[in-house]
């Protein structure tokens, strides 16, 4: 899903082939800097305020500011203590007590204490505009220098990831002198492995925090973040200028790997699922047999091969990202797989008036891969007598139409989150299904089912892992049997990394964190694992 301009640039690059292509900077005795592309940006603005969602420079969360715990999205359920050593819920799931790591210091030398944690959550409570995880905060209390309690207005077990894994802790003594909403924090003071060492509109650099609480780490002394536009990063990857990138590359073997698979590596794990959304308020699409027939007619293998260039895999029928989500699969559907069966699809449709089988498939035209997928779907469905007209619209228009539910069929990705529950809730929760014409924030196909909502509520009402698995399995069963939405393939997380300077990157064999440089705080976890090559 990239802009057509990228494709244009890629064409230029592809024609240019492998002429030239420097081998990067010469290796020096001391550990070299690591050059990172996280997000496409022509220029940077000086903003290192971790409360901000948009506009904040990458690395603020993770490298400078740290969270209380680390949640490995590639192994749901794997939680590593970070600034907090442990957490404990009250019986009703409305208050959460953290025991903090001792001996951690801010980069200005002041100690990190429970005051800072309490202050961070107080800021979010007092400023609803900074409450990006929609936490229902009620109060905070410092119990001891290393103990803090956070109270919520409602049962919040299911928000543990947002609370502990996605809220960077800021120093009270710096932020209390500022307005946290508009503060741009040009000289960030954090607990993380790096500090900001220089900034200009085209490049900023971070240097190792010598007093970091993990002894001997990080081993990468300097990080450089140059501003790359979507076109620029393609050239940079081809010329070997960037060491770690999170970019869509149209022809990765030719542009990036260049015949050196042992150093120029990439890893595209699933970070969500792309599904064909049937609008369930449509009288024909609301019939389960029609959705079943559509699902049986689509050749997902071909879509992955042709439209997605083989960069990803066909989704499991439950939509749960694999590998990693095994424990959440309903046992009887563990080995379920999507298969094409045109005969059965036709059989299912025999009672439906063929004149009614006419749908419009809405796709955002900048996502050229989805546009191609839509064409393939159109061809597949024509084989069983379903007429699909694909319609490419501007990104803005697509967001608005899908949000309001004014479409027949569309394609949309749902992020996986820390555990499959997040994805299931966002795809299926009845309370998210706004009436047609009102902008929804999830469940765009408008699935309404009492059992689904019961399972989602049951998950949120407990912190018991076995019960979590059970509820998610129930949701997976609904996905397979009732087809509320039709998973197509996993949306990949893009990560290209070179092993000529540093080794120890996440891989399919060792998925210890999301490999893409744009995922926070995972990127910092990756940096802490890196070691100079050849040692």
């Amino acid at each position, binding site marked *: 899903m990239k802009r057509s301009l990228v494709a244009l640039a890629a064409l230029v690059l592809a024609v*240019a082939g492998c002429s030239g292509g420097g081998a990067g900077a010469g290796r020096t005795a001391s550990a070299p800097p690591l050059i990172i592309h996280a997000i496409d940006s*022509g*220029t940077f603005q000086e903003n290192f305020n971790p409360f901000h969602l948009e506009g904040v420079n990458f690395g603020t969360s993770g490298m400078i500011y740290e969270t209380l715990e680390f949640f490995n999205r590639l192994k749901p359920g794997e939680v590593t203590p970070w600034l907090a050593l442990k957490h404990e819920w009250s019986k009703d799931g409305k208050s959460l007590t953290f025991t903090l790591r001792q001996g951690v210091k801010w980069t200005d030398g002041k100690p990190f204490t429970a005051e800072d944690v309490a202050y961070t959550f107080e800021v979010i409570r007092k400023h609803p*505009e900074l409450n*990006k995880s929609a936490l229902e905060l009620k109060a905070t209390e410092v119990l001891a220098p290393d103990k803090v309690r956070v109270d919520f207005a409602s049962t919040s077990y299911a928000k543990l990831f947002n609370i502990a894994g996605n809220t960077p802790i800021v120093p009270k003594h710096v932020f209390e002198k500022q307005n946290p909403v*508009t503060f741009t924090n040009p000289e960030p003071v954090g607990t993380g492995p790096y500090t900001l060492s220089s900034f200009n509109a085209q490049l900023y650099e971070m240097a190792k925090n010598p007093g970091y609480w993990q002894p001997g780490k990080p081993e990468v002394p300097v990080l450089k973040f*140059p501003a790359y536009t979507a*076109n620029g990063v393609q050239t940079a990857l081809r010329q070997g200028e960037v060491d770690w990138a999170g970019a869509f590359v149209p022809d990765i073997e030719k542009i990036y790997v260049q015949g050196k698979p042992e150093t120029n590596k990439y890893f595209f794990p699933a970070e969500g699922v792309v599904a064909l959304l049937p609008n369930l308020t449509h009288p024909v699409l609301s019939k389960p047999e029609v959705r079943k027939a559509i699902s049986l007619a689509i050749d997902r293998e071909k879509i992955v091969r042709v439209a997605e260039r083989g960069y990803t895999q066909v989704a499991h029928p439950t939509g749960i990202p694999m590998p990693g989500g095994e424990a959440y699969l309903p046992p009887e559907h563990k080995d379920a797989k999507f298969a094409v069966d045109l005969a059965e699809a036709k059989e299912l449709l025999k009672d439906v008036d063929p004149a009614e089988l006419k749908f419009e498939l809405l796709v955002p035209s900048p996502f050229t891969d989805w546009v191609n997928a839509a064409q393939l779907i159109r061809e597949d469905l024509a084989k069983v007598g379903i007429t699909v007209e694909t319609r490419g619209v501007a990104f*803005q228009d697509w967001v608005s139409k899908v949000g309001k539910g004014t479409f027949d069929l569309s394609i949309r990705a749902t992020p996986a989150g820390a555990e499959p529950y997040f994805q299931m809730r966002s795809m299926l929760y009845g309370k998210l299904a706004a009436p047609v014409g009102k902008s929804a924030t999830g469940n765009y196909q408008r699935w309404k089912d009492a059992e689904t909502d019961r399972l989602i509520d049951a998950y949120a009402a407990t912190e018991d892992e076995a019960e979590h698995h059970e509820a998610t399995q129930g949701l997976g069963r609904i996905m397979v049997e009732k087809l509320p939405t039709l998973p197509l393939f996993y949306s990949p997380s893009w990560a290209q990394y070179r092993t000529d300077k540093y080794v120890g990157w996440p891989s399919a064999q060792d998925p210890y964190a999301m490999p893409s440089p744009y995922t926070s705080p995972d990127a910092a976890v990756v940096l802490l694992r890196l070691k100079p090559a050849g040692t």
Partner: protein
Amino acid sequence: MRFLLRRLGFYLLTAWAAVTLNFLIPRLMPGDPVDLLVARLKGNVDPAAIDAMKRAFGISDANLWQQYVDYLGNLAQGELGRSITFFPTEVSTVIAGSLPWTIGVVGVATLISYVAGTALGVLMAWKRGTWLDGVLPAATFMHAVPYFWVALALVFVFGVTLEWFPVSRAYALDVVPGFTGEFAGSVLYHAALPAITIVLASMADRILGMRNVMVTTLGEDYVVMAEAKGLTSRRVMWAYAARNAILPNITSFALSLGFVVGGSVLTEIVFSYPGIGSMLLKGVENEDFPLMQGIFLVISLAVLVANFLADLAYVILDPRTRQ
């Protein structure tokens, strides 16, 4: 003087219309910035927080009229608001950071192309029938070629294949911005290809425009008379013919400033140049109303000022307008 006052009144009216359109047009786009942000961040944001973000960005549900009044009020105080894309950076800061690059490259390149193109047009009209006529087909060709195509061709040949010039950024990464020779050199080196693109793509218009008018002017009686008086051919060419022939070219220059900024959007995108065009693209992609409005305002004011300067030039060059 009355002429100038009348023009000034006209420009004030135009400025008001431009400001109002700046306000209206971005709001006619479908969707709203927060929905787009959620779709683009692919889930790093909880959809339930949409309300929180709308508040942070100051997106109000107030009616259009109220928003318009607020907008005019803020504008009067020079307040452009905060960008959504670069929240919480002020729009004026974003523009201040990118405008110098655009003025530096696009402005200088346009001037070069104007001066060189006009001079070449004058020469070609004067010496028609000589080898200089060979430039004509080339100019006609360049006249028809769009900016971004020239840009892509230059990137491909000189940037990617030959690697003579850098293909992105305004200066090299290992150079620290400051008043140093090294920095200035790097800026010039990086500006070369975008500037050449603009000169190549816009010069043809000037050559053709100037030559055509010049050819007509050379047939006028006063030119024949000037020659008959025995004036030097240089004097006849510049002071008699070119001075009259340049008037339509000045108007078209002022008008084309708007198109220069428009064309430079594509040039800047192809070269990843951090100017106002790249910012405008970002703003449009993110439905960043404040940023779009700010940039459109700068562009429209630039065009108006350029037109006003063109009027002043008329007053100097053409005595008939002075009454």
